[in-house]
């Protein structure tokens, strides 16, 4: 078998792979909101903080 068939198969498999990934990402809703993630990305550093203080206030909120 000529090598061109092999090359064609490989190239098409790769192309189809990326195509399927694209369809799946649309399906999962990644393109529904294209703004918020761009802002969220900038918060990541501040989000990681000690959570030990959380405990004391939860009881307070329940009084509502």
């Amino acid at each position: 078998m000529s090598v061109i068939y092999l090359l064609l198969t490989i190239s098409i498999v790769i192309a189809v792979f990326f195509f399927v990934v694209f369809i799946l990402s649309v399906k999962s809703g990644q393109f529904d909101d294209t703004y918020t993630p761009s802002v969220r990305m900038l918060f990541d550093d501040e989000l990681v903080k000690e959570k030990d203080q959380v405990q004391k206030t939860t009881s307070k909120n329940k009084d509502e």
Partner: protein
Amino acid sequence: MTDVSACFHCGDPCEADAIVFDKKNFCCNGCKIVFEIFSENDLSGYYDLQNFPGASPKELEGKYDFLDNSAIADKLLEFNDGGAQIITLYIPHIHCSSCIWVLENLNKLDRNIKASQVDFPKKTVRVTFNSEGISLKQIACLLGKIGYAPYISLDDFQTEKIKKDRSIIYKLGIAGFAFGNVMFLSFPEYFEVNEFWLDQYKSTFRWLMFAFSLPVFFYSASGYFIAAFKGLRAKILNIDVPLALGILVLFVRSTFEIVFDIGSGFFDSLTGLVFFLLLGKYFQQKTYGFLSFERDYKSYFPIAVTRINKNGREEAVQVNEIKKGDRLLIRNDELIPVDSILLKGKARIDYSFVTGEIEPVEKESGEKIFAGGKQVSGSIEIDTLKPVSQSYLTQLWSNQVFDSNKENSFTSLTNTISKYFTISILSIAASATTYWLFVQPALAMNVFTAILIIACPCALAMSAPFALGNMLRIFGKLKFYVKNDQAIERLAKADTLIFDKTGTITANNKSLVTYEGTTLNKAEKSLLKSTLRTSGHPLSRILYSHLNGCELVKLSDVEEVVGEGIKAKFNDQQIKIGSASFVNAENIQNNLQTAVHIRLNKDYKGSFLFQNKYREGLSELFKELAPEYQLAILSGDNNGEAANLKKILPLKTSLLFQQTPEEKLNYIRQLQQDSYRVVMVGDGLNDAGALKQSDVGIAISENVNVFSPACDAILEAGKFKELHKYIKVAKGAMTIIKISIAISFLYNIVGLYFAVTGQLSPVVAAILMPLSSISVVLFTTLMTNLISQKLN
């Protein structure tokens, strides 16, 4: 004057008695509490991202009680299984990155909230929580407490969650994917015709191209076949007919060519054509996630109200389940959902939503109250006369105008041209084929298909989507949110403009204040202002902001009598502000105007009179419009302002007062029957019918995050005076489309020369088609940007 500093939380000016906490100024206790909550929970980063991001929390007492009703809560939940519940809440206050940050950190405020995710364009937050630890009501209250009160309306409740339609992205993705690959595979054949290796693998390449174009033909292009079929069935030659014909011929001829090994076919042109067409379609869809153009009364109505059952207990009841004879408790600032009779309490009902009347109406017990009004002075009890669906206000929506669709009855410029285009292409194809049948019969079929392929009006079909799609984006940036491309086209064609009065040409909450009576000295003014500060009544707020440059003093014994007035003491002085009866001034002659009376100690001082204030530039706008358009004002209000309006508006403007919602609708329908094309500019629910009936309904909105009725466009109030410019630009866009269509005709003529003479090779088609599309896209985009420059 005391130092006026901005509240650290919400940015409002805090005066005299600012609350100082942690060396920061706060305008009210609410803001301070929010700050405390955030700082205790390590969330003070909220204030680093943006200055004054917050809103002062509003009174929540009882507001979310209905969420304790599990039937209601269940229906609102998106997902509900054991320890995990998910709900999406709409929060109008979301406006900056601080909002996103704090709302996505809700889990720090309560550990039963597992996660929260903000969708900024839609202004929603999706909260995942454990209902064993925290109830839905507690979440709503928690959000309310930090100044992000969620808005829950009947709309959330009734409509099934609409599934997102992403098919256009799939179709576009498939077409783009196939286009790229087919182009790649067909490239060798464009130039190397008789090369040994190429000949060897030719059929493999061709069948691969065929495989790639199958999903394009059957899936991506399916919309065009359906639209063409629908058009033909309705006996209309819309633009989809020649498009579908072109796509069909491209596919059949190409398949035929490769099956019989005649040539390589036009799969590259086929996939490219579909890709560009879908690109245009995608581009013209500009959606504003946070706006809705389809709202009806359901968006205004609450989900539930408080019913007093036979045992005298209060319970939350769904609005739809209210039956005749139910006794309801309406709290301050709540909407009255049903036609009813007042049983207990003093009602002051704000009908501005429904009738356009600004001044609240007072009702005594035993009087009838219509649905849609808002109670503005304390709690009342009412007895239901008719359920929600049969009330006076909701009946308007049963008018058949709400079932018709403007989009279907309008023929766009493209479709008008398409009719002649299709006919002329078919006749060219027929005559050229007949000619070749006599000269060289073998070529006849080739010429026939070639004409249909090259004449496929791709560039023509793309002119309007790109020009209007770009216009939609430009208008959106300038706070004029148009529903779709067709609305711009209709706007350009209009010849009549109708305006509502209250809230449309007058500014809500903005009045001209004049004072009549004994002049007040500085001390008296500051006493007055300090007293007004304590009141939340709309008139107090207007008067408060009207009196500037006064010092604030500390009062004692402030007492507000809801719906009547306020009294307060300062040292040995007593001040009373409010209605004529409240300040014991019944003898003062009472004209129709809204007034606030003042009594200091024993002396009657005078009254502040409130007048409608017209929007800035109103008179100029009408003068500009007058030569070109027929103008009218339809108001639900009384004719107290008629003389004033006549003075400032051009003579030819018709003025009609005391119009019911139905009368407004019928007035517009009458004009349309006399073949006028009408633009209605309105705001409240009372204009909903007229907005829907008109060719273009434009809703004026002080704040686009707040609701506006169903319409074709939403214009931010501040841009009202620019309306004429917007219409002019819309007209300019139509001219651009016409020029662009002329350009696409030139390409078609060049292509037809190749086709008629029987020399259309795939490479010519593959060059002409994208070239014409790209030049049309470039032309329309550049030109629309150019003409809209004068808007800035």
